Structure formats: structure tokens, C-alpha cells
């Protein structure tokens, strides 16, 4: 099982499942981070504490803990 946080810079993946709960899950969904969405990892802060991803046309900043709750697959 691959998590979004494990992806490298520049990698494109498809979202399989969200492990986030309740409000955080709603939040991710409202940002377009939902099943079937294509995500690209744009930038990573030192030690991958925070990452910048692209969903559709939007750029999102995610902390490592949150990015670890998103299961993805390579495309």
C-alpha cells in the first residue's frame, strides 16, 4: 500500500482511499482530494515535513501526517 507521503517529487499518482476521519476527510474532499483524483507531488519541504501537491488545477499544501492518510497508486 502506497501513501501520498511516500511519493517522490514530480510523481503522478491516483487516489485510492482516504483514511482521514470526519472533518479532515470532508476537507480533503472539498479540495478535490477524493477517490480517483490524479495528484502530482510538486515540492517537498526539508525532511518531507510539508509537501505541495497539485490536484486538478489547484495547488495544496499538506503536512506529512495528513499526506500519510491518503492511499495512492502509481499511474
Amino acid at each position: 500500500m502506497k501513501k501520498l507521503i511516500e511519493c517522490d517529487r514530480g510523481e503522478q499518482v491516483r487516489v485510492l482511499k482516504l483514511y482521514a476521519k470526519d472533518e479532515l476527510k470532508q476537507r480533503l474532499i472539498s479540495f478535490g482530494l477524493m477517490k480517483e483524483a490524479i495528484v502530482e507531488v510538486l515540492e517537498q519541504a526539508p525532511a518531507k515535513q510539508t509537501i505541495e501537491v497539485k490536484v486538478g488545477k489547484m495547488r495544496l499544501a499538506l503536512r506529512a501526517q495528513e499526506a500519510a492518510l491518503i492511499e495512492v497508486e502509481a499511474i
Partner: protein
Amino acid sequence: MEEKSCPAISNHIKVALVGQPNVGKSMLINSVSNAHLHVGNFSGVTVDKTEVLFDYKGYNFTVVDLPGTYAFTDYTIEERVTHDYLCAEEYDVIINVVDSTNLTKNLQLTAELLTMSKKVIIALNMSDEAQKEGIEINAEYMSELIGVPCVKVSAVTKEGIETLIDRVLKKHQEEKVKPKLVFSEPVEEEIAQIIWYLDKHRFQSENSYRNVAINLLKNNKKTYEKLHDNPIWIELQPILIEAAKHIELHHDSDDVKEAFAEEYASFNRGIVAEVLKQKTKQEKKTVTEKIDSILIHPIFGIPIFLFFMWSLFQLTFEVGAIPMEYIDAFFGWLGNTVGATIGNDDIRSLVVDGVISGVGAVVLFVPNIIILFIGIALLESTGYMSRVAFLLDGFFHKFGLHGQSFIPLVTGFGCSIPAYMSARILKNDRDRLLTLFIIGFMSCGARLPVYVLFAGAFFSPEMAGNILFVIYISGAMLGIIAAKVLKMTAFKGVDEPFVMEMPKYRLPSLKLIWHTVLTKTMMYLQKAGTFIAGASMLIWFLSNYPHNLTLETEYAQKIAAVSSVQEKQILKNQLASDMLEQSYLGTIGKFSEPLFTPLGFDWKMSVALQAGLAAKEVVVSTLGVLYALGSDVTEGDNSLVGAISKNISFPSAVAFIVVIMIYLPCLAASVVFTREAGGIHYFFYLLAFTSVIAYSLAFIAYNVTKIFV
């Protein structure tokens, strides 16, 4: 239902402006009316609803600018404001503002709005930008597909604004039309089932049955509450349970909200595929992504940010110092000229030593303030603000803060009041309170004059800019350390997730920056002309009264006894300073002096600090009045900077700066703090917290500096 329209309000249209964050809602209002709402390029500029009124074609429009919301959730306080407003308040039409350059994501909220039975109009904003990016949207076709009017507009070029208002008028007069939001077959089947059931029982409802059905399927609390006490509930409940099961099965999810989000997304994808044409091929990396690879670079990102901040303070001092000389000279001239026309000694002193030197001392720093405000406006409008939040989140997180805390904190460099308000973007109450408590550590614009004054008095002009930078950065560092302490003691708890949109970089519009800076500067000047002038008069009165006749006659005799002009002058100065000491203000100062002696403050500094509780500008104006009265007024050396460097020792000055950096913000900010924190007890915590830290650190600073100097 028969309702006669009241003539007074029949021509009134109330419009709710809704959209996702940072799509230009406030800017749209500004271009529709002549309002001047604050706009920026990050999520969460508008944190509370604002109403703007204007007239058009004989109608009175009230437009309510609601805080941006990504979805109908209560994730943050500002989203709650929007959600509550839309569900509970009375309004006629919703204008849903969407970002044309990111249609798919924006329509996610639109889909939710369409399930409410309200009149909706979609404003396809930023159409000029979309055009530049080669995006073409067929608005007519889109209107047809969704069943609500879609109008292309641009808040920047004002294109389509009039059409939009015309459409609102038309929509207002028309009957409600059902939007054509369709779901996947399994969901539609369930909706049909519920509608059939409601219809069978002739259920009474303001909203359409379809609406009620969708809300029931989405687990909408309010709809449930309404139906729960209805006898049909007993039969309806099993139907709903079945329906939810089917939908969840179809979406392979145990979360009906997620299922609906997916439904909306697929509806939106369909719409976008039909109406949107990407004419030019998009480059592999957009400009924003290219800039990001430099500005949020893992290694260079933070040094670049620090460099920007350093440059800002360097500029603040260097460039700000140029006009200062002239302003100083102007107020000196004004004092002499006005003073010469007033016969009465007391009134002359009130005007010259009180009002003119007090107000002059504050106005002197307008150039510095302008530069600082320009810097903050640039940070807000370019999109860099969110990048810094990204860069600092890792670091902030270690200290128990949230990356997004950076936004209220940086706003705090301008003024604490909007900073306290913008802390609402933080979802978690503990994080928000924590941020509220440390906003004061970010020195606001009103404290800048004190720093500039002291830096100028004790350091060479080349160093003063660096000193300013050091003061601001150490204030910020102290704040972060204080946050850690608070997080470990008072605000223990789980961390809030960090999920934030990174807006597109935008070239700041000159007009916008000019406007923001002008408004803030005018506010500063207005304060100088009213509040500060009043405070200066009060300080003047307190420092001139009561008159001590014995002292005056005593000195008059002494002055008469000596012959040389020099000796006469010395005696006159002594009289002035003795008079000041026995004035009301002197008494207050002397009374509190023992408290401040360990920090090396004389009574004048003690008084200035206490006056600063009202507003930080008063510190400078008070010093201005006190030193204008007490010091020898010889030509060429009547500037406040000179008086400060002559009368205050370096260690005392350092301790003074430390107290100014940390102690309680001004009265107005304290009121806002209390309101935002949600209780007067928080104000007392803040008072105790800041006073203890300010006093102990100033004590340490004073004694350490004494060793070195």
C-alpha cells in the same frame, strides 16, 4: 399564501455573495459598488460578513459578502458564518462567484448551493485571466445545462458587471426555476422513491420534495429535525436506511457525504467537459510552479524569506529617514510660527508643547509606516503569504503552532486588530487561542515609531535598519517560544491538520496597493489628529498643573539675582524640570517609579509606558511632550532623538524597547482580543502573561546591557 409587498422594501434586493476562498468575492463587490473592502491573495481575507449597499435602476441592493467556504461544512469559524447565514437568514438571490481558471473545483460548492431551494446566479469571475490562459467557457451553454444563469465577469477589468446585476434583477422578478442538477442513476432512483413517498403523504414543506429528499440522503441535520416529529417518520426511516445502504454500496464507501461529493464531482466533470475549451496547450510547468520551485526550495526557501524581511526593515529605516528631517523641521517651524501668534503663555504652551509636539512626534513616522504597509500589502496580494506558511509549518509545528498561524501573525506586524480577527482561519479553538495570545509579540505598526526613535538615538543610520530587523525578529522568536510554553501548559491538545490552498502568484495591482496603503495611512494620520492630539493635550495638562507659585517666585528671585545669560538659562531649565516633577503627571510618574527603577526607567519613561496602554503612538507623543517641556530648548538641538540620546542611558533604552515589544497591546486591540478569545478572563490572562514576561525580560536586558556598556 397572500402577502402584500411593503412599498418601502418592495424595491429592495438582498444578495448573498458566496464562493470558495480567494475567488475575488470582495473585489467583485468593490467593482460593483464603490466599496473598499480589503482584498488579498490568500484564503481567509474576509472573516466576517460585510454588507454593502448601492442603488441600481431604482432598486436598493444589499450585497452581503460572506467569507469564502470550500464546501458546506463548519470546518472553520468563518465557514460557519457563511453556512449559518445561508441556512438561516433571509435573502433573495445568491451570487455564486467562481474562479473561471479553476472551474471543476469551484463547481463543487456550486453543486451544493443548487440543492438549496434558492435563486442562484453563477458569476464566472476572473474571465480575463482565463482568457489569457487560453480557457474558453461557453456561458450560455452552461446556463442551459445547469439551469441557472451563468455570467462571465471580471472584477479587475469590470467586464460583465452590469450584465451580472441585470441578471440578478431579472432573476429576482422571475419565479424560482429548478436547477438541473442530476445525480447518478442509483441516487436518482432513491430520490424518486422518497419524493413519491412524501407526495403520497402530502407532506407540507417550503422546500421542494426533491430538495427534502436530497437533504435526507445527505444526512442534513435540520431536515431530519423537521421530519423527526412528523408521523410519517416511522415509515420513512426504513426507506432512508435502505437508500443509504444502496448509495454506499454503489460508491464503495461507508460515508454518505463522501458519496455525494463524488456525485457532485462527476456531475461537474460532465459540465466542464461540455462547456470549457482549453485552446492553448498548457505548459508542463505553470509560472506559479516555476516560481514555487525557487521560493519554497527546501534549502533556499527560508533564507530567501528572511532576506525579504530584512530588506523590508532596512528600507523602512533608510528610505523612511529621508523625509523625516523635513517633517521634523516643518513641525518645528509650525510650533514657532503658531507660538508667535498666541499671546497667552498657557495657551501657547498647550498648542506648541502639547498638541504640536505630540502630534508632530507621531506624524514624523508616517514615512516608515507607509513602507511597512507597502511591504505587508505586497506579501498579502502576491500569494507569497501562503508560501511562507508552507515554509514555516514544519518549524512552527515543533513549537505547537500551526503553519497558518503565520497569516494572523504577519498581519500583526501591521496592526493587532485585524490580526486577532484573521486568527479565525484556524479551525481548532486551542490553536486559535494560542495564536491570539502571541499576536502581541509581533510588533505592530504603531510600535514602529518607538523603535525608530530609539534606534536612531543610539545607533548610526547604517546600523539602525539592522537593529529594527533584530527587534522584529526577536519579538517574533519570543512569541514562538511563548507559544511553546503555552502549548505545553495551558493549551495542551492534539494538533490541527495542515491542509491549505496555495494560490496562484499574481502581480500586485498598483491601484490595490495604493488604496490599501492610503487607507491605512489615513487612519494613522486621523488617529494622530484626533486621539493622539487629545491625549497630548491631556498629557500636557497633567504635566503643567497644578502651578506651584512658591516654586515660581523662588526661581524668579534666583534668576533676578544672577547676571549672566547662561546662568539665567540654567536656572530656567531647572525651574521647568522642577515644575514638571511636581505636576500631576510627575506625581503619577514618581508614584510608579519605584516599580520601574529596577528596569532603569526614570519617571518620564514610566509615564510614557503607562500612556502607551491607550495606544502605542502615545508613547512617542508623551515622550515628545515631556522632553519638549523639560529639556533645554536651544536652537538646533530641539529634536526628540537628541533629547532621548541625551537623557536616557543605553541599558534603560534597551529595557524600554523590551517592554514595548512585549507588554499589552493598545486598548482597542485588547477589546478585540477579548471578543475574539471569548471572555474577559482571557484578557486578564493576557495581561498577567505579557506583564510578567515583559518585566522579567526587561530586567534581565537592563542588567546584562549594563555589564557590557
